[in-house]
């Protein structure tokens, strides 16, 4: 990876507007600022009315907080997307094969490609899942793969989210909003649709049902209205036409899961669960959990109910497993990875550790167990003192760290106080694995709204954009 200057999604290095951004650039150039402001206000109003939220409602407001939405879309040419899609399908396929393997023959471990302790001692490895046969051998039916485009113009996978990836409801609502506000733009370009995601999702879920269920009953299991992603749970349940349930609505009898309804009990065949493994079943996991269903895991292992995503999937999407994904693609598919990992040094390896220690000021170092923040070092912005402290930590416990070069995320024009300015973006496409692997074009583009900021998380001030894949 070279080049420090970021990649501008809209303009090439000579300042020319890229073809796929043409119509938007023109619209921005010729539309008076007042009209643009009007459109943005309209978007705000509509979002408020519909109540597209991510955060729990604050009791004193009785109103939810909205994720900021920027009306300038992020646009990807169709040919570029096709390549991405192939790479994503390949990656998710390999990850699912890896998961099947580690819970069965463990061939990849026996081949010496991954240190066994990495997997078997991983806190997300669920030994009760060993030998369990899943429909289509799929563990992650719904995956969200975070991509960034570096200054070399190439996409890299930042992170795999195989357990409970969220954000797809914003993808859908953003598109609806854009079509409502800028119908003329959709006439000028062919933007591939995303509205069929709920239908694809339902199909994927039904495909994972136990064989005896002829007309599978699907339900979305939510922790409840106080969860930050509750809007999405409710939205998807409604769009698919299935029940939204909480743990208390379900019970198990004879290893079968039922819903408590006004006309008695109703069997459930597939549960799209947005609750972490640990809270799923107080009899099998955390016994204090009030969110889960006693006996659910037993029913699951007995094959009487399907869970999307599977229990124990976390072993494949944590930072310590990430560096091995390209190996997985080669091992299981006998192919070269289409999508690249961000180059990663595993500090547990002496050669890698040596490199990292020497180049510490240029690298981002992350704790393997942990989620950014505390256990992270951003070399280029760290003080000499911070670097010294981190050096000590690294030498003391090298196994716990990985290092990556600082990424220069691509930017996309975004509305800011003074007008339009470049802001860093990433991309999260959603990959559905049922009988086949499918994607809707694009995904969720997250944008860091603060100038220079690389933090796109909505909980830390990020916003979203509509993502257009144009033919």
């Amino acid at each position, binding site marked *: 990876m070279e080049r420090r200057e970021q990649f501008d999604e809209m303009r090439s290095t000579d300042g020319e507007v890229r073809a796929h951004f043409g119509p938007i650039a023109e619209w921005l150039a010729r539309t008076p600022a007042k009209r643009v402001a009007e459109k943005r206000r309209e978007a705000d109003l509509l979002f408020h009315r*519909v109540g597209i939220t991510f955060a729990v*409602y604050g009791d004193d407001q*009785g109103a939810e907080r909205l994720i900021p939405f920027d009306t300038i879309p992020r646009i990807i040419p169709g040919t570029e997307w096709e390549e991405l899609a192939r790479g994503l399908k390949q990656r998710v396929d390999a990850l699912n094969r890896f998961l099947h393997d580690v819970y069965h023959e463990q061939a990849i471990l026996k081949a010496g490609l991954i240190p066994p302790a990495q997997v078997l001692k991983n806190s997300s490895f669920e030994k009760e899942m060993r030998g369990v046969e899943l429909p289509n051998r799929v563990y992650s039916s719904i995956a969200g793969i975070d991509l960034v485009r570096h200054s070399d113009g190439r996409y890299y996978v930042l992170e795999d989210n195989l357990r409970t990836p969220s954000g797809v409801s914003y993808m859908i609502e953003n598109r609806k909003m854009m079509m409502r506000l800028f119908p003329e733009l959709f006439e000028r370009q062919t933007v591939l649709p995303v509205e069929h995601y709920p239908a694809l999702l339902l199909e994927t879920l039904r495909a994972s049902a136990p064989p005896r269920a002829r007309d599978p009953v699907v339900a979305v299991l939510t922790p409840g*209205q106080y969860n930050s992603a509750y809007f999405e749970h*409710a*939205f998807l*349940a*409604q769009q698919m036409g299935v*029940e*939204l*349930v*909480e743990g*208390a*609505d379900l019970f198990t009898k004879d290893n079968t899961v039922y*819903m*408590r*309804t*006004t*006309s*008695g009990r109703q069997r459930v065949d597939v549960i799209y669960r947005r609750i972490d493994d640990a809270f799923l079943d107080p009899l099998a996991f955390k016994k204090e959990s009030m969110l889960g269903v006693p006996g659910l895991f037993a029913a699951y292992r007995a094959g009487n109910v399907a869970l999307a995503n599977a229990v124990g999937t976390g072993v494949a999407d944590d930072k310590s497993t990430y560096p091995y994904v390209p190996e997985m693609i080669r091992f299981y598919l006998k192919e070269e990875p289409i999508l690249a990992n961000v180059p990663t040094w595993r500090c547990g390896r002496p050669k890698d550790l040596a490199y990292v220690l020497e180049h510490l000021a240029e690298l981002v170092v992350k704790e393997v167990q942990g989620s950014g923040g505390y256990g992270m070092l951003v070399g280029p912005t760290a003080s000499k003192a911070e670097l010294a402290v981190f050096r000590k930590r690294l030498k003391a416990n090298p196994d716990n760290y990985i290092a990556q070069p600082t990424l220069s995320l691509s930017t996309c024009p975004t509305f800011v106080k003074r007008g339009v300015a470049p802001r860093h973006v990433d991309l999260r496409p959603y990959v559905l694995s049922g009988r086949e692997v499918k994607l809707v074009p694009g995904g969720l583009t997250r944008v860091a709204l603060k100038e220079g900021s690389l933090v796109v998380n909505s909980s830390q001030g990020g916003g979203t954009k509509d993502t257009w894949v144009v033919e």
Partner: protein
Amino acid sequence: MLSRVADRIYWMSRQIERAENMARILGVTSNMVLFGTRETREQNLLAPLTITDSAERYFEQKKPVTLQGLVDFLALDPDNPSSIYSCLRSARENGHAVRWQITSEMWESLNTTWLEMRRVRRAEIAGAGATRFFDWVKDRSHLFRGVTYGTIMRGDAFNFSRLGTFLERADNTARILDVKYHVHLPSVKDVGGALDHYQWTALLRSVSSFETYRTLYRDQVLPINVAQLLILERRMPRSLAACFDQVTQAMERIEGHDRAAMRLASELHARLTHADIEEIFQDGLHEYLTEFIGDMNELAMRIQRAYLGTA
């Protein structure tokens, strides 16, 4: 539908209706204290507490029984689960829990009502402000019922909402009538005799049936007619008979209806359909109403058990 969802919808509807009924009772009470002797004034002030079974709780506060005290307790007190404040808050909470199973208009109606209730200050509803406030509560209840009737698909969400509304209304009508009757006719000998015109008129106004009374009876206000209007006259929307028309209709439409609950509802409905007001008075109105209220409680329990998951 999920029992939990049905439970929330049923209760949100009961709570809005309860708030409306409380506003009606308090409205009448604040009117009535302007008339009458000190004795009748005291009786009038006690009536809302008796109707809502909250006299004991009120007296625990060790406050004198005044109109302002009543309003504080029954309209504004967040610790009183039956206060207008508490009812509107609960209704909104229930609505939020099942926001996606009700229409957005229903949700917005509950949410806006709550947001506005939170802004109400004690000083605003003293004196003349009180009537304005009670009217506002009634309006918000009408709105909720109206958007429900006007927007939600005719499925079980609708059925449980109507069931909650009309059971609550029936319960309240029976209580108001019983307390007023009991309070104002302590002696059986006074049945059918000349009575304080204002008391009965006030009662009729509180259930919006003064004009209806005039239309149907063209007579001075007699207790036996008032009782007939409020119990048996199915053309009067707040009567027990009209309420039970709605209750049985809602229950019949519930998918997979429960026999024990349905049977009792039909029985109560039949009793109202075939009753004779003279016989009721002969056997004792108070006894009739007490029994009816007891039966409605039993019905509510059966509904809770059969459909809503036990409370």
